[in-house]
């Protein structure tokens, strides 16, 4: 690929930062609409069975109540009518279309009232009786009931001699578990549905894949895509929870259709734990064999992931083991265990976050059994090419990540023996781990309009769930076009904008960024075409590479006389703006190389000798995500991922009462995520070297990479501090006393 490498990478403030902190930016649930009414969902209080009787009479009589919708009176939607259709269209729970209860907290009624408070109160008056059926919620005691995943895109791998690990002189053979985690973005999910007749639906919905959501809704409602508009302009975090249509969205659509007026349904914080997905628990086994000089001979990685009984969710828990280290002999195996829960969903670094915890903890254990430095062990087993198919890496700077992070961390000063360092009542330890995440690119389209005053509008139906996509796109456009950032506006979050992938899998910059980059070139080309046509000699031989835009003018490098204002150019053609739309996708390079981002994490922890409390006191991450488009937002994104890694390592865990099959402590008092006091200064370093093949900017994804390996680095540091290996996350104080 012609690698132009012109994006500066400088730190740039968020273009929407002021709007967000001053409240000017309206998030989904804040959008004011005339004639709007409020729906509140009532959840089931059993895990499994059928609804025997649902009594809504008291709720219906309560002040302000307009309607109570249940499976008995709900308008039926095409896609949810039959379970076969719902399954085929991947619609999830058939909310209000069945009397079956498949998980505890499942929405069984929607109370709609003039005011939110009225709906909340009336919701508490809905009474329901059930015929209960036995539920299965205990992941740990039902592992033998796991079954192979039916996923088409996941596969188990056998490479070489799968028993090789067991015959090696040094080996690790351990079991690891990670608990159910919940996304819990700051902004809670909400949908407002507005019907115009039966033909046109507009939804304001918190999601980060407006066109995927639109497509799903169109299919579910048997409408054309053009009849459905999905808007999600500002998003207060998502982490994957906004990648599919959830029951509250269907509930809002049903209610708005029945009542013929806009209905808003917002999910409460406790409902965020049952109605909008979560990261499934895993049980894993990792076995690694190595020679005495630390060369890996074979690996076996088995994983079981939790799913629901009404759908299968599968993720690539063992994926990282297939590619991270040079290893001729490998076996990976992934199964799913259906339990009486709602269905999980992608949560930041899905699969890899949990898989890397097991793999990278096992690598640390191997390093100790070899009496070898864990950094050296990683370097020793660096894979020169992708171990599965020997494809060359498009770029792989993992070793540089290790070197740079280790230097910044002062890893050399480390005494390797566990329990070798303490400070007053605290054991002090350091640990490291590495991670990797596929660098993908999907086709994306951008439309651009340049007016005669030099204002550039760029549109694409992507999302910005927090990483700063709007800012990065404006920056790419500015660097690619020469037009200052202040004159560029990037519009996103609306399904009727040009096609773009949903924000997930760290694809946005590589995909949408490419489209933005290309459309800027296209605009330049159009201006050039006009100049060639209307200005005669000066531009006749001009090459697009030599053309630049500056201060509302176009010119040719080295020819000051060529400068011409956009206004003059457009006037010559009697137009007021130049417009272009273009789709960008990867070329043939896509098949030739293995594309991945890489990262190395180093952590220092203090562990209290008496109480078992763990504090992360230092954290250094070095990331190879190709060229960095905007240092400021990129660093923030890695820091944020590391904070999630601290949560994953030390505190995040959703508990279940197995007797009732109901989550317990599903709120922010019971489910802990890190607070400021848990987060040290996180030092983020970027290799910042362009990937030559993924796109013209040289950027690889960095949404997930900061999390992958972070929990293992902390766990490994805890082992170094205390000599205690905790293989079951989270590492709460009780596991260390």
């Amino acid at each position, binding site marked *: 690929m012609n690698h132009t490498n012109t994006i500066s990478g400088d730190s740039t403030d968020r273009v929407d930062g002021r709007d967000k902190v001053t409240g000017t930016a309206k998030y989904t649930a804040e959008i004011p609409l005339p004639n709007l009414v409020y729906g509140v969902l009532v*959840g089931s*209080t059993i895990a499994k069975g059928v609804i025997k009787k649902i009594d809504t009479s008291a709720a219906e009589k309560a*002040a302000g109540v307009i309607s109570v919708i249940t499976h008995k009176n709900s308008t039926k939607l095409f896609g949810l009518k039959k379970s076969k259709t719902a399954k085929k269209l991947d619609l999830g729970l058939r909310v209000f279309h069945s009397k079956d209860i498949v998980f505890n907290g499942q929405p069984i009624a929607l109370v709609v009232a003039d005011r939110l*408070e009225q709906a*909340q*109160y009336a919701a*508490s008056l809905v009474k329901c009786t059930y015929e209960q059926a036995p539920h299965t919620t205990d992941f740990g005691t039902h592992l033998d009931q796991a079954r192979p995943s039916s996923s088409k895109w996941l596969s188990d791998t056998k490479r070489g001699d799968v028993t090789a690990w067991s015959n090696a002189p040094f080996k690790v053979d351990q079991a690891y578990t990670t608990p159910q985690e919940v996304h819990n973005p700051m902004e809670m999910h909400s949908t407002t549905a507005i019907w115009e007749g039966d033909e046109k639906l507009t939804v304001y919905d918190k999601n980060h894949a407006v066109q995927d959501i639109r497509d799903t809704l169109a299919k579910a409602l048997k409408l054309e895509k053009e009849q459905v508009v999905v808007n999600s302009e500002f998003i207060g975090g998502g982490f994957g929870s906004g990648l599919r249509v959830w029951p509250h969205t269907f509930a809002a659509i049903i209610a708005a259709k029945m009542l013929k007026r806009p209905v808003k349904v917002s999910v409460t914080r406790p409902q965020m734990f049952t109605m909008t997905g979560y990261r499934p628990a895993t049980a894993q086994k990792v076995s690694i064999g190595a020679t005495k000089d630390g060369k890996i001979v074979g690996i076996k990685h088995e994983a079981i992931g939790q799913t629901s009984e009404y759908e299968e969710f599968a993720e690539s828990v063992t994926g990282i083991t297939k590619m991270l280290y040079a290893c001729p002999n490998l076996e990976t195996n992934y199964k799913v265990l259906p339990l009486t829960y709602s269905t999980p969903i992608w949560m930041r670094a899905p699969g890899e976050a949990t898989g890397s915890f097991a793999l990278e903890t096992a690598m640390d254990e191997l390093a100790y059994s070899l009496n070898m430095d864990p950094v050296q062990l990683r370097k020793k087993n660096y894979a020169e090419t992708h171990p599965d198919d020997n494809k060359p890496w498009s770029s792989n700077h993992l070793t540089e990540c290790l070197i740079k992070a280790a230097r910044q961390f002062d890893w050399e000063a480390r005494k390797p023996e566990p329990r070798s360092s303490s400070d*007053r*009542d605290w054991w002090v330890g350091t640990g490291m781990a590495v991670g990797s995440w596929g660098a993908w690119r999907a086709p994306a389209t951008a439309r651009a309009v340049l007016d005669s005053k030099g204002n550039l509008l760029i549109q694409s139906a992507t999302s910005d769930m927090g990483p700063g996509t709007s800012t990065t796109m404006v920056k790419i456009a500015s660097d690619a076009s020469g037009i200052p950032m202040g004159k560029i506006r990037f519009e996103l979050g609306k399904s009727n904008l040009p096609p773009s992938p949903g924000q997930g899998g760290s694809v946005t910059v590589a995909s949408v960024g490419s489209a933005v980059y290309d459309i800027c070139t296209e605009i330049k080309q159009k201006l050039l075409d006009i100049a060639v046509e209307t200005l005669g000699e000066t531009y006749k031989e001009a090459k697009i590479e030599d053309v630049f835009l500056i201060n509302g003018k176009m010119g040719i490098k080295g020819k000051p006389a060529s400068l011409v204002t956009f206004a003059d150019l457009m006037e010559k053609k009697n137009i007021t703006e130049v417009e272009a739309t273009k789709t960008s996708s990867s070329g043939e390079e896509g098949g030739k190389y293995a594309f991945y981002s890489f990262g190395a994490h180093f952590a220092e922890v203090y562990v*209290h*000798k*008496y*109480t*078992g*409390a763990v*504090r992360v006191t230092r954290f250094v991450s070095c990331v190879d995500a190709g060229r960095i488009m905007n240092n400021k937002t990129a660093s923030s994104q890695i820091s944020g991922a590391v904070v999630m890694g601290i949560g994953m390592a*030390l*505190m995040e865990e959703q*508990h*279940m*009462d*197995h*007797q*009732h099959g*109901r989550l*317990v*402590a599903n*709120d922010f*008092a*019971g489910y*802990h995520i*890190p*607070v*400021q*006091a*848990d987060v040290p200064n996180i030092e983020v370093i970027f290799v910042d070297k362009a990937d030559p093949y993924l796109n013209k900017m040289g950027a690889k994804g960095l949404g997930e990479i900061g999390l992958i390996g972070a929990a293992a680095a902390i766990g490994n540091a805890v082992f170094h501090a205390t000599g205690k290996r905790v293989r079951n996350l989270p590492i*709460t*104080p*009780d596991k260390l*006393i």
Partner: protein
Amino acid sequence: MKLFQYHRPTDTQSALDLFQKNEGAQYIAGATNLLDLMKKDIVAPDHLIDISRLPLNSIQNGPLGVTIGALALNSDVAMHQIITQQYPLVAQALLAGASPQLRNMATVGGNILQRTRCPYFYDIAMPCNKRQPGSGCGAKEGFNRMSAIFGASDSCVAVHPSDLCVALAALDATITVKSAKQERIIDFKDFHRLPGNTPEKDNILEKGELITSITIPKNNFTKFHNYMKVRDRASYAFALVSVAVAFEIKDSVILDARIALGGVAHKPWRAYEAEAYLKGKSDSENSFKAAAALVVKEAKPLTHNAFKVKMAEQTVLAAMLAIFN
């Protein structure tokens, strides 16, 4: 949330009268707990009597000790010179609780009266004898990692969530309460109760009685004291175990010792036996170790909270040792 009527008296007598006059009344001050309970349909008062305008927020030294008005804010108490200089254990405990935003709203009286944070109490779809007598205890056979290891009963294994109360228990505070009929003074150790068969009653306050102040007697603990809290994250979490310790020591001999624990029982838990053991002993690690072992001698853990026994013992020891390090 059910509709309610809101009253805002400006003097104590009016507040007491309003309570008498209105069936289903409840006092409200900082609302940092009550509002949650109302939102979750755990309590549904018909009348809310907002006492936050009553003149009950002074902090004053008297002949017996310091008297803190029931409406003094947690944040103000924690920063008050009398408290930081003469009762630093109280300031330490206060600052270990909640967040600055909550402490700016929460009152001392409300802190003493806050309900348990047992998750079964907070979910009306689950059984809980404290919330709904006779419905059973969900935690006992369910998720009981946070539950009590001392003084629990078959009907309730909940713990009292306060940090402040652990310090007040250790310092033998007294609580002054007022009703339309009378004023009475209750010893802190008698105020909260164990669940027994009536876990719905957290304390011995009678209907309509209002806490007006607490008094902490003068003491000689300013030099040797510590509040240590163990939780699942560094801040803003309820205690797994918390410990208040205070000593009066002369020439390395312990003249008086106080040990109270939080997060382990239905009330702030005083370790009287360990305190008695320490009196007259030297301030050595061996004395502390023996005392810490005595603290947990009678512990009765459940399925998920056995760790609290060891954690309580070690935290008591650590809290004591840290005073001298």
